[in-house]
């Protein structure tokens, strides 16, 4: 049986945006071009130009016991080389950020191989082999419409801020002030790496997106944007899952399910 993935239910713009994020065939709009080295600096795991540290020899040189799963699954490049696993973590503001933690988790799982991701209410971490993580961070997580310099923060620790009001410049609150708004150019500059160590020179991540654009590409249901209750199809699915999970714990008989 050929399976056609549906990704996400719903008829609203928000649901469509979520489907676009998850669908690996959709190319998200490219909005900025940040140099590789700058992204390496923000991540703070290695110096730009430094070799990748390894945790094991390349897979080709290793004498591994025979296992047919290894033949079935093609390792990603970083795994082939034995690079270590590193992380990048994002916090998404509730004020119409383009992505949000659950959407990120699903998107990562649909689009990428060799990722481990952890979802929390305000932040979303992605772990992967270092070289692959850098490529993915640049090409997808930061350069495209998946990211907004003002409403999304790259934060490894002390992430508090996603549910707070924005500041006067429209940036999400950050206790460590990893990024600042340059009032002359209107750009957002990272002055610290993701855990709060100062950078030698600021990294420019471009202009914040305008409010209308954010409302167009956001994946967050909000009462002052598109409310979730406007989406009938989504509500049907959510209610169905909710009932099944609630009743499932009580070992319901057949006729209870028939009424749902």
């Amino acid at each position, binding site marked *: 049986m050929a399976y056609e993935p549906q990704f996400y239910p719903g008829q609203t713009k928000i649901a469509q945006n979520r489907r676009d994020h998850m669908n690996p065939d959709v190319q998200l709009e490219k909005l900025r071009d940040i140099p590789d080295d700058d992204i390496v600096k923000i991540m703070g795991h290695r110096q730009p130009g430094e070799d990748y540290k390894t945790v094991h020899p390349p897979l080709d040189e290793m004498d591994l016991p025979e296992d047919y799963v290894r033949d079935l699954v093609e390792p990603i490049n970083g795994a082939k080389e034995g690079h270590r696993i590193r992380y990048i973590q994002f916090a998404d503001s509730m004020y119409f950020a383009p992505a949000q933690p659950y959407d990120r988790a699903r998107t990562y799982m649909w689009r990428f191989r060799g990722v481990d991701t952890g979802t929390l209410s305000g932040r979303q971490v992605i772990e992967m082999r270092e070289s692959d993580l850098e490529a993915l961070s640049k090409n997808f997580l930061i350069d495209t419409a998946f990211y907004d310099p003002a409403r999304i923060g790259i934060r490894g620790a*002390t992430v508090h801020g996603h549910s707070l*009001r924005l500041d006067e410049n429209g940036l999400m*609150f950050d206790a460590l*002030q990893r990024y600042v708004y340059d009032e002359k150019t209107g750009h957002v500059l990272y002055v610290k790496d993701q855990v709060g160590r100062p950078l030698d020179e600021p990294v420019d991540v471009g202009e914040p997106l305008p409010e209308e654009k954010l409302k167009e590409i956001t994946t967050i249901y909000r009462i002052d944007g598109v409310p979730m209750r406007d989406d009938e199809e989504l509500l049907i699915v959510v209610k169905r899952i909710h009932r099944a999970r609630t009743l499932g714990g009580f070992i319901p008989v057949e006729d209870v399910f028939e009424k749902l």
Partner: protein
Amino acid sequence: MIEVEIFPHRYLKASTTEKFLNKIYDLKTVERVVIHGQPLPKVVNYGPARGTPVNHTERKIINVKGVPVELTVMAGRFWITLSDDSELDRLDEICKELFPFGYNLRVGKFLKDRPTVTDYIKYGEDGVFLINEMDRRLIGMVDPRSRMATSVTVVEKEDKEE
């Protein structure tokens, strides 16, 4: 005596907070102001960069009517005690001028005016007796866990704390 809460729709820069405080201290009826907001740490508390200074540009000493006030929070809310409601309109005008992004102004009850169980636990009965003896206007000004010396500033005009 009435209390007013001012809730700007954005977190304020230190410079805006300074302007706002100076303006409202011009009003005659303003008795005390509590600034509420997000704490800005001096050093990084968690993670690999623990101990590194933060140097947040909004954590600085501002000048309110000539009195230096160390701003340790990013202001997001003000609780203001007014002696009467005669200058509410002027307060509203100040807000309109300084907060173009929007704000809420509510009259209500926001600060405590008598010692509570927390104070009994913190100071003991003798301590609470002392609180009752001291200036009543200091009650409710401070978070019970913080030290008063660092969080209350007296702005002299006709006795005003903040």
